[in-house]
């Protein structure tokens, strides 16, 4: 049982990092990023490839963070020119293109077979202890990331991001270089997602393109909306609730619900979709009751 809880906690914390990044984009800056999984994927693959090539894991993690941050630059450039619904479609398309490249450039990524044997740090330690250590490190990283994002958000820089979220043109008329601020926000959030990707790769020990479907982005969006867009605590809280639900439903079969794996998975997605709809229609301000991001334009 402990092993299971540790595993769930690790995945939850990884998603928590993703949520912190997306919350910076959407909750604080008002950027519609539906391609978040792309940064996750790039981070995971970068870290996996480098470490499989012999680099130390720390280097892999740093490279993952950096590459994901760089990948945010074209999104930043595009986001200034596109309205919300178009940006949503383009960013989904972007993440699918990244997945397509990962799927097809077999010489680099081994395509659908994926990369196996991605190293786990401290694998000299026995199983159990190893996972606990991983969990401890990850918890530390998430805590640090949380503090970092909080600091950014409460700073005058963060105040400008919120102003941009409220009204870009007004912010621009008051001297703010909106494009630059958006790009910085995007790069930071993407970098955190890349770091999450690295942790994911080194925990699961293999990476395949199928792990990086748009569904992951949608999960993170639910977590962020659920927690109340704009609140970092909310983002983590929302992730926790989402994880409990997703993992909890795995047990339905054990409790005698007569459904096979495929149907159970489908049912879970139906509930996820319903959650998105209900949240947006009835409780867009999320559980912590932050501002309603969907009012107005």
């Amino acid at each position: 049982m402990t092993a299971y809880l540790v595993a769930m906690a690790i995945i939850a914390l990884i998603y928590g990092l993703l949520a912190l990044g997306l919350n910076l984009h959407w909750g604080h800056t008002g950027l519609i990023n539906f391609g978040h999984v792309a940064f996750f994927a790039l981070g995971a693959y970068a870290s996996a490839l480098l470490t499989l090539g012999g680099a130390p894991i720390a280097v892999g993690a740093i490279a993952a963070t950096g590459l994901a941050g760089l990948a945010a630059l074209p999104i930043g450039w595009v986001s200034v020119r596109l309205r919300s619904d178009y940006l949503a479609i383009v960013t989904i398309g972007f993440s699918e293109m990244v997945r397509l490249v990962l799927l097809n450039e077999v010489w680099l990524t081994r395509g659908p077979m994926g990369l196996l044997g991605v190293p786990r740090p401290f694998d000299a330690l026995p199983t159990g202890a190893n996972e606990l250590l991983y969990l401890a490190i990850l918890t530390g990283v998430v805590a640090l990331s949380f503090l970092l994002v909080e600091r950014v958000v409460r700073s005058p820089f963060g105040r400008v991001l919120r102003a941009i979220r409220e009204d870009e043109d007004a912010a621009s008329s008051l001297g703010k270089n909106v494009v630059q601020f958006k790009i910085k926000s995007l790069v930071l959030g993407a970098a955190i997602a890349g770091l999450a990707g690295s942790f994911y790769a080194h925990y699961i020990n293999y990476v395949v393109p199928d792990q990086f479907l748009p569904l992951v982005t949608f999960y993170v969006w639910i977590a962020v909306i659920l927690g109340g867009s704009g609140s970092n605590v909310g983002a983590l809280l929302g992730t926790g609730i989402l994880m409990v639900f997703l993992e909890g439903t795995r047990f339905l079969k054990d409790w005698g619900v007569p459904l096979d794996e495929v149907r159970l998975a489908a049912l879970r997605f139906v509930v996820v979709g319903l959650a998105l709809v209900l949240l947006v229609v009835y409780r867009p301000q999320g559980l912590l009751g932050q501002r309603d991001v969907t009012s107005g334009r």
Partner: protein
Amino acid sequence: MLEVHGVTKRFGGVAALDRCSLEVRAGIITGLIGPNGAGKSTLFAVVAGQLNPDQGDVRFEGRRITGEPPHRLAHQGLVKTFQVTREFAHLSVLDNLLVSMLDHPGEGFGTIWLRPGRVRQAEAKAEARARQLLSFLTLDRLADEPAATLSGGQKKLLELGRALMTEPRLLLLDEPFAGVNPTLGRSLMRMLRDLNEQGLTFCVIEHNMDAIMALSDYIYVLAEGRVLAAGLPGEVRQDRRVLEAYLGSP
């Protein structure tokens, strides 16, 4: 201080501005009036960098600024307010002003981490100045309220406050008196005169004739995208062409 030379701007087939030329002299309050659709707000949008003109030039203090984006113009001292107020709704009134300060070191991503002391200092200075402005605008009681909860007239004052926070040299006000009750309007008039006496140049679009006549030192009348008449308030008021433009030819 501001020169507009032959600016033309078309939307579809319609010329909102048609070889429009005027001049805003430093130190005075210049009024801009004209019937609906005359192109006044469009002119402001072109001057403030929100729109690119199809033809013509804009110069600010001798320098050509045509096509420069709004955020750069703000740094040069040219700021425009919006006709319909665009306050940062979910930010507090105080935050609305604080965020308007130009070149706050805390807005640099690296500076937050590397020079926290400097950031704190700048923040303290900004807050002092913001509170001063709030008091001048009689909004100090509302400092911590979300801007969305302000009344229409208060939002207009906040809009002015934000622009003032940037320490502009030329302020373009788009209908500052619209929707403002007469008492507040009189205070606003006094505030604008005070600011002008302290050296701030204004160009003001307004439909409220009494207000604009009382406020302006010089007036331009726009109609159909170009300047119809210009002069002192007294002269313009009696200009037959102006009366016709507003009331239609007999």
